[in-house]
């Protein structure tokens, strides 16, 4: 947006009261939904640290529910997200949890219960509405949503990474960062790639065709839809 823009001072448009406990919580819920790929039916949300203590005063529960329903941080429906979830028959339970000292005091774990497509994330709300996704399905990650992010889970075959980057270069996309971690005994790896531009529609299908690929998700930028121009 530019350091000197008036809209950096008069903005963002957001749902109150707190950027870290409300806006950040919306974004964490929304990220879980985007990873799952559709509206979940049964979800358990675990509040860690400060969230477990102050969630009520900050409306963090409604914020996460709003995110799980696909809302953005400025959506006026966040206030009544719990009622909307009930109406849509989305079952969302809240629990408190101690994730351990390695996690930021404002952390949330979300488990979407679906035997066919289990989805699980742990994310931190680090201030000003910014978040970091620390774990996806048990794999450590460092996703901030500052860029469009590809999330790929695949068999750990030789040459898979080069096939992935090959597809990305076919679409003429610029890679900002790439990280790949594997679980040696299970021969499964999680690769996350940040790209500079919006992902074209065919990218997902093409990546899915790579041998051994079992999950392809494309997360838009966190601030997508909030642009002033």
């Amino acid at each position, binding site marked *: 947006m*530019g*350091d*000197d*823009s*008036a*809209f*950096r*001072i*008069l*903005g*963002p*448009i*957001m*749902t*109150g*009261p*707190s*950027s870290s406990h*409300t806006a950040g919580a919306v974004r964490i819920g929304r990220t879980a939904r985007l990873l799952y790929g559709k509206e979940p039916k049964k979800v358990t949300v*675990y*509040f860690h640290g*400060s969230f*477990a*203590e*102050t*969630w*009520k*005063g*900050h*409306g963090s529960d*409604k*914020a996460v529910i709003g995110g799980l329903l696909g809302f953005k941080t*400025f*959506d*006026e429906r*966040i*206030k009544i997200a719990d009622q909307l979830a009930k109406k849509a028959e989305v079952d969302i339970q*809240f*629990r*408190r*949890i101690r994730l351990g000292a390695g996690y930021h005091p404002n952390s949330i774990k979300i488990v979407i219960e679906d035997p066919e497509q289990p989805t699980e994330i742990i994310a931190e709300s680090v201030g000003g509405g910014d978040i970091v996704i620390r774990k996806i399905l048990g794999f450590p990650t460092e996703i901030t949503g500052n860029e469009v992010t590809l999330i790929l889970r695949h068999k750990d075959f030789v040459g898979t990474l080069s096939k992935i980057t090959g597809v990305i270069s076919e679409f003429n996309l610029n890679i900002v960062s790439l990280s790949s971690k594997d679980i040696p005994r299970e021969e499964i790896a999680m690769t996350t790639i940040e790209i500079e531009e919006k992902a074209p529609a065919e990218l997902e299908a093409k990546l899915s065709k790579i041998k051994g690929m079992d999950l392809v998700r494309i997360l838009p930028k966190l601030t997508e839809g909030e642009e*002033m*121009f």
Partner: protein
Amino acid sequence: MTIRSVEPFILQAETEGKSLGEIMIEHEMEIQEVGREEIMSAMGKIWKVMVSSINNGVKIEQRSPSGMSGGDAAKLLKNRKSKSITGSTIIKVVSRAIGVGEFNSSMGTIVASPTAGSSGVVPAVVYTVAEKFKASEETIVKGLFASSLIGLVCDAVASTSGSEHGCQAEIGVSAAMAAAAAVEIAGGTCKQAVNAAALMLKNSLGLACDPIAGLVEVPCIKRNGVMAASALVSADMSLAGIESVVPFDDVVIAMDEIGRMMPCEIKETSEGGLANTKTGRGYKNWLRSSGANQLKDASED
């Protein structure tokens, strides 16, 4: 380029015979590389959300989940005709600012200006001055742009975060921005607008950020109201020709120095000040235990 001083803008306004708001619109067009219409309509969108937050806020009747806030804006408006000491303009601006604060704490959609905790002052002041002068939307948008220069300089030189520089950096900056906007809408010059901001910011130096239980409610919401009234007073002083002896840029440097000297107990940590009073600790303990007790532990499943 980061804007660290108001002086080049005052100089440009005086040379070209333009208002502060006009200069800031031209500046925004330059950095966004888009036309005037887009710039005006983007700020128009911001204004629409501000107006809706005022209209919703002054209607709130129920208390917040913590029980510490809610319904005070409506209370003040109701009382204005019978027993008001200060009169209609002040009562209206205060209740509007409190209303936005209450709307924010009840999960309403607001514009951070510059932050969520201080989001009531700029909308309330701009709305009230525009109403008084029957200003067009174009003038209102200019007022908002005028306020942005004040916020940008404070942010670049000092901070606009309570956790860094205390409440002076949030409510103090919002009130200084609002004072500049008020002068712009009332037809004052760039120099008068910046001077109003200097008078306002000077009188908020050293304000602690000590919210009870870490919630954006006490003292934040009512402080939005009181500071909105002060912003109008600062604007009136400047329009009357009263000058701040210390110019705006220097006041911001002072705010930065004071902010650095402030202990962390009064920088949004809720460890000192109002948060650490018997009342403050009482709310904190009650809220924390009731929040945690309402959640089953993960291991209990």
